[in-house]
């Protein structure tokens, strides 16, 4: 009987030739110093395991027909019958219809999820302002239609009038395709000077359908905050003194539930913007009012 150390060395020498799996079994033994038993070569499996198991007796019915006529009929028509064919067609058509339907539904759901819920900026919200005719307008009045919201002021030197002209073209393009599903809104950031009358005169030169919203300074401040619009009226303005208002310049597209969809900026031409809006409208599956 060899000494454990010599036996270990013998295995160690043989190591490069043994398969890794064998090593995994044998290596712990190599490390072991307490174990005195000599390493055994892997033994052959017990030949008893190869002995075949007795199978249960095989019961086989050669024919599943009860009468000879039945068997003859089956032999003539083969495995196909008009019933089987019909069943095949109906099942196939049903599956195709189901999968197509399900694919469309998942597509719509994905778009709706992308436009709502987590990860979307929370823009918009409840408000109460008055339009250019002095009527009260709230966020509830806009529900059921898309709305395009733009912030500005009537004394604006260059950007607002240009953007309002752009908005008018954009609105006309959308109206051509989907009449009555979008409300164009212009909200003033300068409520001190832009009353309903000033808004009416100003907007009449842009588009007859534009709705101009104004209110108290607090109402406008809340509205701008809800839409994440930055605006600053210069401090220490004496009565009658002229001033300009600094403000953000984006068109906010809001869906019929009052949720923010997309901001359109100076980089969009009226055609591009109208296309973006119309594409969003195509994806809308909820209820939509029409005037």
């Amino acid at each position, binding site marked *: 009987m060899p000494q454990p150390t010599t036996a270990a060395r013998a295995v160690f020498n043989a190591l490069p030739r043994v398969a890794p799996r064998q090593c995994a079994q044998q290596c712990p033994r190599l490390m072991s110093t307490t174990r005195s038993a000599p390493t055994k070569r892997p033994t052959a499996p017990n030949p008893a395991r190869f002995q075949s198991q007795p199978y249960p007796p095989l019961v086989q019915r050669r024919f599943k027909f009860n009468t000879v006529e039945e068997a003859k009929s089956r032999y003539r028509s083969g495995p196909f019958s008009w019933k089987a064919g019909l069943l095949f067609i109906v099942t196939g058509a049903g599956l195709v219809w189901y999968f197509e339907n399900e694919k469309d539904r998942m597509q719509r759901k994905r778009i709706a999820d992308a436009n709502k819920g987590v990860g979307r900026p929370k823009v918009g919200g409840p408000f109460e302002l008055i339009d250019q005719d002095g009527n009260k307008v709230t966020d509830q009045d806009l529900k059921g239609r898309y709305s395009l919201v733009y912030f500005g002021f*009537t*004394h604006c*030197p*260059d950007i607002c*009038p*240009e953007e309002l*002209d*752009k908005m008018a073209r954009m609105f006309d393009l959308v109206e051509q395709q989907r009449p009555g599903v979008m409300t164009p809104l212009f909200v003033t950031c300068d409520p001190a*000077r*832009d009353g309903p009358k*000033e808004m009416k*005169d*100003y907007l009449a*030169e842009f588009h007859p359908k534009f709705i101009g919203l104004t209110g108290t300074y607090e109402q406008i401040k809340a509205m701008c905050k809800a839409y994440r619009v930055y605006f600053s009226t210069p401090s220490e303005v004496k009565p*009658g*003194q*002229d*001033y*300009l208002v600094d403000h953000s310049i984006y068109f906010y597209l809001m869906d019929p539930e009052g949720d923010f969809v997309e901001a359109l900026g*100076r*980089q969009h*031409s*009226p055609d591009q913007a109208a296309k973006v809006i119309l594409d969003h409208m195509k994806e809308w599956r909820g209820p939509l009012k029409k005037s």
Partner: protein
Amino acid sequence: MGLLPNLNLFGPASEADKRATEVRSGAVAPSRAERARCWEARDAYFACLDASGIVDAVKDDKKAAAACGAESGRFEKDCAAQWVTYFKKWRVQDIQKKARLKELEAQGASKMDVQSDFAARK
């Protein structure tokens, strides 16, 4: 007023004169026609400043007055006083921005689709 025959659209000359004063002081918001006239005067004034090589018309006001006195007069008459200052400041910033963009482009920066001039997009 003899200088402004087209302002007679608003009625008697005095009425038009009153309206023009109100626009200049910022008491009323300019109409579309008044805005167009103002922008036209602005563009003419800026073209003159460009030709004279003046960037900041607020800082170099004496030089600007000497070179573009007539244009400046029309600009100040047709635009609200606030707009005149705003446009002059805007011009300085725009020139700086364009120079900076040119500089960046020379350094190999890629251009983004951003509009900074007054021209409306078609």
